[in-house]
C-alpha cells in the first residue's frame, strides 16, 4: 500500500489536460492530438502503476485520500479503491487512450474540443469509481453527463439532438432521486461517508425507499429493461468514441452502483426486491435478445446486445439471494465475480465492436447491415478481427466473454435451474444475432462496388483493434489477474449483502 494522492492524479490530470485543450491556440493538429494522447497515456500508465501496487489480499480500501470538503456537512473529499473498483479504473483509462487514437483523423470538426470532452469525462469517470463519499460520488456521477451530452450533440449523427437530450434527461431523472436518497442517508448517518452508510442500521421500510431511489438511477444507467430505450438512440447517434465510452464505461457505472451502494447499504431491501431484479434481468436477456435479432443497423444491434450482456451482470448480482444447497456463499460469490468479470469483458468486447463498426462507417458512412457484405474478401485482417470480437461477444470459450457468462450461469443454477436455463438460452439467441450479423456483413459475396473498393486497415486502426484483441484473448485464457484482484473485495461484499441491517 502506497501513500500519495494517486487517485487524485487519475482524476485531475485528465481534467486539467482537457481544460488546457480548451484554451485557444491549438492551431497545430498534430500538436493537439499528441498532447491529448500523451495525457491519456500518462493517465493509463498511472492507473497501471496503481494496479501493480494494489494489495489484493484485503478487502479494505486502498490509496485512501481524505480531506474535509464541506466541513459543516461532514462531507469529505474521500477517495479509495478496492478490488471491485480497480479493474474499472484501468478499463476507463485504457478506453480513453483508444478513443483518442480512434478519433485521430476521423474527427475534423472542432477536434480539440472533442479530445477535451473525452479527457474531462475520463477524469470524472475515474472519480465515480474511486469516490467513497456519497456527495462526491454524486458530484462525479452527474458531472460526467455534461461531456457526454456534448459529445453526442456536437459530433453525433443526424438525429444527435434527439439522442443527446434523451440521454441527458433520462439519466438526470434517474439520478436526482438517488440524490434525495443520499441526502436522506447523510442526515441519518451524520456524514456522507459511503462506508458509514454501509454500516448504518436501517429498517426495512427505509431500505425499500432507498433501494427504489437507487434502482431508478442505476437501472437507467445499466440499462435494464424497460428503461433501456435511451441506449439504442444514444449509441446510434454518438460518434464512435462516444459509443465506445458509453458501452465500455458508462453502462458499467449502473452495475457498479448496485455493488457499491444498493447491495451493501440496503441489503434487506435488495433481498426483498431480488425476485423482481432477477425477472427484469431475464427479460433483458431473452426479450432484448430477440429485439437485437431484427435490427438492420449495426450499432443498434450491438447496443441491444449490450443490454443483453448487462442482464447477465444484474442476474449474477441478484441471484445471490436465492442460493440453496451446500455451497451458498461460494455460489453467491461466483455469481458476483462472474457479473463483474462480464462487465470488464463486455467493456473490452463492446468497445471493440463499436470501433469495428466505426472502421466500416468511416469508409462508407453507413451503418446499415444491407450496405455491406463480403467485407472479409476486401479487408481480410479487419474481417478476422471483427469475427474474433463477435465470437467473444457470443461467449466463445477461450475469449473473455465466456468466463463471466459461464460463471453467472453456473452460479444461477444453484439458485434456480430454470433461470440458469433461461440465461443459457441466450447463448443461442446471442450466437444467432451476432453470427447472423457476421454472415451478412463480413462473409458472403462482395455486395457492391463500394465494398470492393474498401481500403484496408491503416496502422492506427490496426493498433487500436489489436490492443483490444490481446486482453480479450488473454483474459479468456487466463482470467486470474482480474479474479485475484477482486476476490477479497467480492467476498466482503457478499457478506455485507447477505447480512441484515434491520434492528
Amino acid at each position, binding site marked *: 500500500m502506497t501513500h500519495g494522492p494517486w487517485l487524485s492524479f487519475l482524476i485531475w490530470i485528465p481534467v486539467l489536460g482537457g481544460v488546457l485543450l480548451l484554451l485557444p491556440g491549438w492551431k497545430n493538429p498534430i500538436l493537439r492530438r499528441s498532447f491529448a494522447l500523451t495525457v491519456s497515456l500518462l493517465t493509463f500508465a498511472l492507473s497501471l502503476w496503481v494496479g501493480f501496487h494494489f494489495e489484493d489480499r484485503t478487502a479494505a480500501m486502498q490509496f485512501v485520500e481524505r480531506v474535509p470538503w*464541506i466541513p459543516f456537512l461532514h462531507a469529505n473529499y474521500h477517495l479509495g479503491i478496492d478490488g471491485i473498483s480497480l479493474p474499472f479504473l484501468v478499463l476507463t483509462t485504457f478506453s480513453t487512450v483508444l478513443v483518442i487514437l480512434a478519433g485521430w483523423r476521423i474527427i475534423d470538426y472542432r477536434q480539440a474540443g472533442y479530445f477535451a470532452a473525452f479527457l474531462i469525462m475520463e477524469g470524472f469517470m475515474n472519480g465515480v469509481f474511486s469516490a467513497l463519499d456519497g*456527495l462526491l460520488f454524486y458530484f*462525479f456521477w452527474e*458531472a460526467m453527463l455534461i461531456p457526454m451530452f456534448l459529445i453526442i450533440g456536437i459530433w453525433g449523427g443526424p438525429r444527435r439532438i434527439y439522442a443527446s*437530450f434523451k440521454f441527458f*434527461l433520462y439519466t438526470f431523472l434517474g439520478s*436526482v432521486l438517488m*440524490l*434525495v436518497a443520499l441526502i436522506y442517508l447523510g442526515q441519518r448517518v451524520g456524514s456522507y461517508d459511503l462506508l458509514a452508510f454501509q454500516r448504518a442500521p436501517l429498517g426495512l421500510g427505509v431500505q425499500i425507499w432507498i433501494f427504489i431511489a437507487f434502482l431508478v438511477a442505476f437501472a437507467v444507467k445499466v440499462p435494464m429493461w424497460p428503461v433501456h430505450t435511451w441506449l439504442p438512440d444514444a449509441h446510434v447517434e454518438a460518434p464512435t468514441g462516444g459509443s465506445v465510452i458509453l458501452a465500455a464505461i458508462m453502462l458499467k457505472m449502473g452495475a457498479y452502483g448496485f455493488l457499491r451502494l444498493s447491495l451493501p447499504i440496503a441489503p434487506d431491501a435488495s433481498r426483498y426486491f431480488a425476485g423482481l431484479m432477477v425477472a427484469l434481468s431475464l427479460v433483458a436477456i431473452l426479450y432484448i435478445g430477440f429485439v437485437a435479432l431484427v435490427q438492420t443497423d449495426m450499432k443498434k444491434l450491438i447496443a441491444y446486445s449490450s443490454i443483453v450482456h448487462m442482464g447477465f451482470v444484474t442476474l449474477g448480482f441478484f441471484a445471490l439471494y436465492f442460493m440453496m444447497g451446500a455451497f451458498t456463499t461460494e455460489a453467491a460469490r461466483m455469481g458476483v465475480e462472474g457479473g463483474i468479470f462480464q462487465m470488464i469483458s463486455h467493456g473490452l468486447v463492446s468497445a471493440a465492436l463499436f470501433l469495428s463498426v466505426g472502421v466500416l462507417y468511416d469508409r462508407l458512412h453507413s451503418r446499415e447491415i444491407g450496405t455491406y457484405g463480403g467485407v472479409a474478401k476486401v479487408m481480410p485482417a479487419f474481417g478476422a478481427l471483427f469475427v474474433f470480437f463477435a465470437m467473444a461477444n457470443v461467449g466463445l470459450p477461450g475469449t473473455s466473454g465466456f468466463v463471466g457468462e459461464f460463471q453467472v450461469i453456473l452460479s444461477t443454477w444453484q439458485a434456480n435451474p430454470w433461470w440458469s436455463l433461461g440465461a443459457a438460452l441466450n447463448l443461442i439467441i446471442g450466437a444467432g444475432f451476432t453470427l447472423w450479423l457476421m454472415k451478412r456483413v463480413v462473409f458472403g459475396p462482395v455486395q457492391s462496388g463500394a465494398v470492393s473498393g474498401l481500403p484496408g486497415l491503416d496502422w492506427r486502426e490496426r493498433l487500436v483493434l489489436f490492443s483490444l484483441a490481446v486482453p480479450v484473448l488473454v483474459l479468456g485464457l487466463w482470467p486470474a489477474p482480474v479474479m485475484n484482484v477482486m476476490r477479497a473485495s467480492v467476498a466482503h461484499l457478499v457478506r455485507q449483502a447477505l447480512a441484515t441491517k434491520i434492528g
Partner: protein
Amino acid sequence: MMSFSAMAPEIWIAIGVLAVVGFEALRSRLPGDFLKTAIPATALLALALALIEALFWNGASQGVFYDGSLVIDAFSRVFVAAACLGALIILFYSVADMERHGLGGGEYHALVLTATLGVVVIITAANLLVLYLGLELLSLSLYTLISIDRERIPAAEAAMKYFFLGAIASGVLLYGLSLLYGLSGTLSIAGLSVDLMAMGSGTMLAWVAAVFVLVALSFKFGAAPFHMWVPDVYEGAPTPITLFVATLPELASIALFVRLLSSGLAPLVRDWSAMLVGIAVLSLLVGNLGALFQTNFKRLLAYSAIGHVGFILLGIATGTLRGEVAAVYYTLVYVLMTAVAFGLLLALRARGQDIEAIDDLAGLGQSQPWWSLLMLFAMFSLAGVPPFVGFWAKLAVLRALLSAGFPPVAIFAVLMAVIGAFYYLRVVKIMYFDRTDRPRATGNFWNVPNLILSLNGLALFILGLVPSALWGLCAWAIRH
C-alpha cells in the same frame, strides 16, 4: 462617530447619488468629456466605499442603532457587501451598453445608486417603517429604470404594469404591517416577534396579517401566482436594466423574507409555512413549465427566475435555520449565475450580436467560443448539474427540506429540476449543436468588464468545486 459608522454604507451611497445628480445639474457648464468619466467614476467610487465599509464593520458595532431603526449583524454585513459588490459588477457590465444607446448619463447612475440604497436599507432595517421605506425607494427606482428608454414602447408597458401591480402589492404590505402594529403596538421587528410569541399563535388577526405580508413579499420576489409582471419586465426592459432587475432586487427580497417572515413573524411559522410551501410549489410549476415554451431568451430567463424563486421559498418555508441558510445561499448563487447570463448578453451586444430570440444564439459556440463556454457554465449551473455551484444551492434546499420532514416536496422539487434541465439544455444545444458557418469573431476583447465577466463565469465552476466557502459564509450570516 460611532453613530455615523453604523450607517456608513448608506451614507456613501447617498453622497454618490447627490454627487451624480449634482454633476448632471451642471451638465451645461461642465465639459462633456469630464462628465463622461466623472459620473461613472463617482458612482463606482461610492459603491466601492460602501463595500469597504460593509466589509470592515467591526464586530463590536453589532446591535440596533438609531432608536431601533437599523440593525448591524452578520446577515446585514454579508448582504450589504453582496449588494454593493453586485451593484458594482452591474455597473461594470452595463455602462458601456447604456452609453452606446445614449442612456448612460447621470439619471442612470443616480437611479442605480438609489435602488442599491433601497436594497441596503431593506437589508439593515430593524423597524417595519424603515423596511417599508427601503422597499419603496427600491421599487420607485426600478419603475423609472425600466422605462428609462422613453422611446421604447415595450419598456414603458412593462414599467406601467410593474408599477400598478407593485403599488397594489406595496399597499397590501402596508396594510399587513399596520395590522401587525395594531396587534403588537410596536414597529420593531424583534419586538414584534416577542409580542406575537407572548400572544401565542392562532389569533385570526395575526393570521390575516401574515397572509397580507406573505402575498406582498411573494409579489416582490416574483413568485407564482403573483409572477405576472416578471416575464414582461424581463423582456420589455433594456437588457442592462433587466440585468439589474434580475439580480439586486432578489437580494432585497430574500432579506425581506429573512427579516420579516423568518424573524419577525417567526411565532406564526405554522401559519405561513404551509402557505409558503404552496406558493413555492406553484412557482416551481409555473416557472419550469412556462419556460418550456419560450422563444425569447430574456423571457426564458424570467420563467427560470420564477422556478428558482420556488426553490428559494422552499428553504424559507421549512421554518428552520437550516432552511434559511439554504435559501440565502441559493439566492446568492442565483444572483451570481444570473449576472453571468445577462452579462454575457451585454458582452455579445458589445460585439454586435444582439440576442433577442433564443435562436439568435445559434452557432455561438463557433463564433464566440469563450462567451459560449461561460454561457454553458451558466446554463448547467442554473440546471443544477455538478460540478457547477447551482447544484450545491439545490442540494442545500433539498437537505433542509428532508431534515424538516418534507420528503414529498423534495421529490417534487427535483422532478421540476429535471423539467427545468430541458430548457437550459436547449440553450446549450442552440449554441453548440446547430452548425452554422459563422466565422470566429475577432477584435479587441480584453477590457475590464470582460475580465470581470470571465471571473464571474469561472466562479460558477470554482465555487462548485469548493462549495463550503460561500455556503459557510451564509451559514455564518444566519446563525450569528
